[in-house]
């Protein structure tokens, strides 16, 4: 009997996913660079100098924004890559190529997650390079924490995108959560401000926003300051990655949303 080389199947799917977003780089890699450049110009260079450093933990506003904008790009791109790619294979029925092959379900999941992480991390690097044009002296306070949070966040939101794609029945379904859930939570999650600027009530409400923990843990890595406990945040990211991975594998094994 034929023995299946699992590493080849995984490499095939992961490289296909990476090729896919690189092939359409104008749609996937250029827009975040342009959008973030505009944020840096408007908020960083024009409005930023008028903001007192006291409200941004002593940092220049443009410098304070950099981790938040990188995280915003990583979250949206990781999520968007997996949700659009997996929904597209469902829509075009090319998911049958995967389901009919002997690939185990975990390699299918891992292949798509690798695609999402590669795009998220690459976009994060692009946005960081763009930020250096506006703040060339940027020094990363804790590179290990920065890289860890970058990858963990990318994995977390790729998994969320996968679940969204499994349940999606139309292109509307894959844009609802990014538009109406992710974007507001990211904007209110401390990308542009410290929650210390808010009233005690709004601070309490903000602490219920998971994006706050992701953004601030990354800010701790890049700048060495955070509004929340880094250990708690890292722990929660890891717990959610485990829960979502188990959920994705359960859905794949049950065939929900992909098998009739």
């Amino acid at each position, binding site marked *: *009997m*034929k*023995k*299946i*080389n*699992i590493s*080849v*199947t995984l*490499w*095939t*799917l992961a490289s*296909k996913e990476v090729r896919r977003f690189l092939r359409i780089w104008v749609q996937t890699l250029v827009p975040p660079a342009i959008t973030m450049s505009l944020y840096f110009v408007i908020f960083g260079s024009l409005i930023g100098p008028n903001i007192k450093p006291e409200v941004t933990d002593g940092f220049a506003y443009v410098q304070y924004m950099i981790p938040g904008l990188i995280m915003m790009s990583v979250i949206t791109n990781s999520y968007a890559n997996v949700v659009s790619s997996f929904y*597209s*294979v469902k829509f*075009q*029925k*090319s*998911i*049958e*190529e*995967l*389901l*009919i*092959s*002997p*690939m*185990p379900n975990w390699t299918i999941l891992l292949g798509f997650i690798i695609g999402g992480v590669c795009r998220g991390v690459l976009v994060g690097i692009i946005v960081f390079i763009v930020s250096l044009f506006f703040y060339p002296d940027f020094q990363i306070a804790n590179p290990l924490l920065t890289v860890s949070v970058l990858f963990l966040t990318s994995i977390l939101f790729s998994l969320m995108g996968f679940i969204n794609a499994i349940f999606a029945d139309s292109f509307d379904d894959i844009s609802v959560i990014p538009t109406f859930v992710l974007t507001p939570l990211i904007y209110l999650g401390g990308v542009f401000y410290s929650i210390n600027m808010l009233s005690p009530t709004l601070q309490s409400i903000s602490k219920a926003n998971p994006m706050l923990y992701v953004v601030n843990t990354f800010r701790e890595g890049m700048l060495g300051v955070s509004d929340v406990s880094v250990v708690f945040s890292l722990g929660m990211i890891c717990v959610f990655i485990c829960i979502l991975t188990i959920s994705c594998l359960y859905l794949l094994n049950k*065939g929900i949303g992909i*098998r*009739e």
Partner: protein
Amino acid sequence: MSEFALQIDNLKKTYKGGTVALKGISLKVKKGDFYALLGPNGAGKSSTIGIIGTLVTKTSGQVKIFDIDTDKDVATAKSLLGVVSQEINFSQFEKVIDIVTTQAGFYGIKKSIAKSKVETMLRRLGLWDKRNDQARTLSGGYKRRLMIAKALIHEPKLLILDEPTAGVDIELRREMWDFLKEININGTTIILTTHYLEEAEQLCKNIGIIDHGEIVVDTSMKDLLRRLDVQGFVLDLEEPLKFEPNVEGFDLKLEDPLTLVTAVNKDKSINSLFEQLNQLGIKVKSMRNESNRLEELFIEMIKK
């Protein structure tokens, strides 16, 4: 090891909403067979194929591919199977060569090994010149070829084709028939569903007819055709006739001055017809079947 490439036992499928697609079908296809699975639309053919390829979840029953139970070792079972689906199921925006190479990768074939296999397959199916074209630019016939190339790239022992020649022109259909005959001779067991009954008659050794989720016929093609009581013949004449000739024991109709049509009961010899026509001075230039024989049987079977 048993002699069967596929064994289906008491397979049932009820979809959400209560539609019963399969009512407990059982089927055995021998190794090396070329088997036709026929049935009207909605009979359960695609559900059966979907369950074999694990694209559809079965409600109950057992499927074995070369003795391997798909519930126990699905990966090995799937590695022996190739499926050509009814609908196009590849990414339309990728190049032909990438689609087939990627499919090989999904079966664990390294790129270095897949390279020569892909070239051979694309050349064999006339797709080599189009290897760098985006799949969406291919014509319907070439898309069908690409589907077959994809399904065969890992050299499956069992190939299932769900209406592979639907919408394909006659020339390409004949080419595909030759290709399928060749791979069958070389050892691949083939199961074919089709609406072109002539196709099944030309290619297949055995036949199953499925209707309303049940197997109503499972026999050899020869045996099935033997069940025909009456065969229709069309006689092309050398010289035109003005009236239908009166021939004892045969009901002849003059379709046009140069064409006679008749139905011959299988217990009668057609020699008698030729002898009588000869005595009347009517010369027959050529003769052919009035219509597809299998079609008549098929309609008869699903009416029961």
